[in-house]
């Protein structure tokens, strides 16, 4: 039966959206404080104004229902789905008024890219951007990477109405501990600890590279946030290439790998259960997948005429491979090199690895290794069934924080999301091609958007075509929430808006 949203539902949804808009206001307080400290007065006044707008709007939305009931599953889906776009709309305001974006839509694209940790930037003149604006871009990565709901839950913003439904609807499939709030706090604690350690090392590397102390501290923090949340924004237009530092590149490879590991598995390692990590289906799939792809990628790179020397292959090729695998999007080669120096085979392999991404329950995007592993297990199960006697009952199991039986429900979920990702890649490519772009580039851009990678090859650019930009925004949005939440929300809103009597009832 199609259940409509009634007025009370809308008021509850509005209330919770208001709470999340208040979080947006708090996000803007970070660049505001930095701007005050550094004497960047124009950004300071801009962030004060925008944070205040969000504060007023958030409070007005909360008035829709003073004391809301606990969210049910349907309401949670709509809150989560809408929150990502409503927050992006608010975050785009200060970006637009920075003067570094051609249109409001460009700044909306940037905020969606930041919040979904895609990291595909279309900013103009990044090298002259204020520190406050840069800080806001990386704050978006941090909050979006961990998830609004996770941050809001860990801050206690839902005041006892915290709901597992909200947590699950934000594409978090598993709990580290049974309590959702405790799980959210664990994720925030671990992330803060990792980012602090990574920042410290990165600052030292930046100082050795020749950055002055203030810039070293800021760049160290920003790169660490971007690397761990597998975001991809950088404070300079040359990405990681800007620093010309082998230690930084090696360290970032480690950080990107770390960012693509599930929080559940990090929890197991945290508690000393390392064997669980190595037995896990995601870890094993990752090892197989990366080994296979690295071998093919190396052969493909060597088939090109220019990128054949071993030091170049190791330093540039492997970094790009990890960047694409973790869906971070950091670059140590120029976009031009991707298109002209990398062989077409190597470029296709990069696209392929971008599709899969990292672990489910990590900050990485893409289809996720867990689903790839499950689909492979399903294939094994099918072959086993064909080869077994008709009376035999085939049981296939897998390790994922303990031994589990492969059930049709798990396979169905994996296959559904897999197919939806493929459909999104195709739709994005078709729209890109319809605007006269090269098919390979359009495919690469489409994969980069849906998988939240951020390795863009020039189609996504300042002032790009309106409808193409809208499609890319939608791709980033649905890719981050892994489709189901968005599709359910769209159906729910459509059914509710449809005139009475037209919706089929059983």
């Amino acid at each position, binding site marked *: 039966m199609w259940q409509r949203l009634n007025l009370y539902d809308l008021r509850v949804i509005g209330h919770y959206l208001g709470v999340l808009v208040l979080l947006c206001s708090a996000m803007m307080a970070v660049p505001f404080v930095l701007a005050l400290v550094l004497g960047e007065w124009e950004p300071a006044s801009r962030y004060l104004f925008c944070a205040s707008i969000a504060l007023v709007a958030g409070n007005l939305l*909360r008035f829709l229902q003073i004391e809301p009931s606990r969210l049910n599953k349907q309401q949670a889906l709509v809150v989560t789905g809408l929150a990502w776009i409503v927050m992006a709309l608010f975050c785009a305001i200060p970006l637009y008024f920075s003067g570094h974006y051609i249109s409001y839509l460009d700044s909306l694209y940037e905020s969606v890219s930041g919040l979904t940790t895609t990291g595909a930037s279309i900013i103009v003149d990044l*090298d*002259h951007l*204020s520190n406050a604006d840069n800080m806001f871009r990386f704050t978006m990565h941090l909050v979006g990477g961990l998830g609004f709901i996770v941050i809001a839950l860990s801050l206690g913003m839902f005041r006892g109405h915290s709901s597992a439904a909200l947590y699950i609807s934000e594409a978090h499939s598993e709990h580290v501990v049974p309590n959702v709030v405790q799980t959210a706090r664990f994720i925030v604690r671990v992330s803060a600890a990792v980012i602090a350690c990574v920042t410290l090392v990165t600052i030292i590397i930046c100082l050795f590279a020749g950055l002055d102390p203030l810039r070293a501290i800021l760049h160290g923090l920003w790169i660490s946030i971007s690397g761990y949340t597998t975001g991809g924004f950088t404070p300079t237009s040359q990405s990681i290439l800007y620093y010309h530092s082998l230690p930084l590149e090696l360290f970032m490879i480690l950080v990107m790998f770390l960012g693509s590991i599930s929080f559940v598995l990090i929890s197991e390692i945290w508690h000393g259960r390392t064997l669980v990590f190595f037995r896990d289906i995601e870890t094993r799939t990752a090892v197989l997948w990366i080994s296979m792809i690295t071998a093919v990628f190396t052969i493909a790179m060597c088939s090109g005429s220019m990128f054949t020397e071993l030091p*170049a292959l190791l330093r540039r090729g492997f970094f790009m491979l990890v960047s694409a695998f973790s869906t971070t999007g950091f670059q140590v080669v120029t976009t031009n090199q991707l298109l002209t*120096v990398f062989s077409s085979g190597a470029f296709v392999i990069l696209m392929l690895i971008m599709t899969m991404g990292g672990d489910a329950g990590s900050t990485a995007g893409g289809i996720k290794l867990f689903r790839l592993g499950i689909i492979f297990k399903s294939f094994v199960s099918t072959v086993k069934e064909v080869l077994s006697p008709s009376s035999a009952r085939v049981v296939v199991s897998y390790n994922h924080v303990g031994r589990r039986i492969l059930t049709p429900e798990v396979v169905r979920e994996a296959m559904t999301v897999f197919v939806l990702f493929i459909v999104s890649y195709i739709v994005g490519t078709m729209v890109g091609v319809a605007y006269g772009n090269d098919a390979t580039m359009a495919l690469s851009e489409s994969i980069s958007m849906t998988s939240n990678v951020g390795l863009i090859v020039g189609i996504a650019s*300042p002032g790009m075509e309106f409808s193409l930009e809208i499609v890319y925004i939608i791709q980033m949005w649905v890719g981050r929430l892994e489709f189901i939440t968005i599709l359910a929300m769209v159906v729910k809103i459509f059914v509710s808006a449809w005139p009475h009597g037209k919706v089929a009832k059983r």
Partner: protein
Amino acid sequence: MKALRKAPSLLASLVTVMVAGAFALGVCPTWAWAEDTPFSQNLATTDGGNRVNPSQMPDSSFLYDTSIMELSQADSYLNNQRVQVVGEAVGERINAEFDPDNCWISLKSTDGSDSVIAVYTSKSLTEAIDHYGSYNATGSTVQVSGTFYLVCPQHEGVSDLHADALNVIALGADRVHGFHFEAFLPGIALLIVGLVLFWMFRRMREGQR
């Protein structure tokens, strides 16, 4: 007899080749036929805006007076070629690894294209750069001539420009961002409204409990 019968077709082929040759000469970039005339008089441009300064080189090689945007879109044709570009120095001077005498600077195009190229140069040459572009400064505009590498063999495949000469053609300047209290007033007013709403909400919720 056979040769005579083939003569018209041979003639036709010859004419075709000549016409094609003439057409090729017509569309060929004019800089390819540059003579030993003063540089300022000889900046013949093609549609792409690519120019050559033939007077600068003692040998017969070309020095392409090109742009950073063109280098950022270069194909293998420009690899290992001597080029000259103008751009704004941005960011800061980055130390070259295991190479205390040299460094990297980032050169941003000044034509509004937003392209940036990494320039590998000696530290002594960069002393003339007085500002590096950032939020608080407009960087020095410098002219760099050197060798462009699409895949640099010395730096593990990075796409860079090895500078032989670096001249500052315009000094940088500080960007002054003044404090204007009136710019904060709308924000302060809205903040007060937001805080009042926040307080009212708390009161109303407590009243309902």
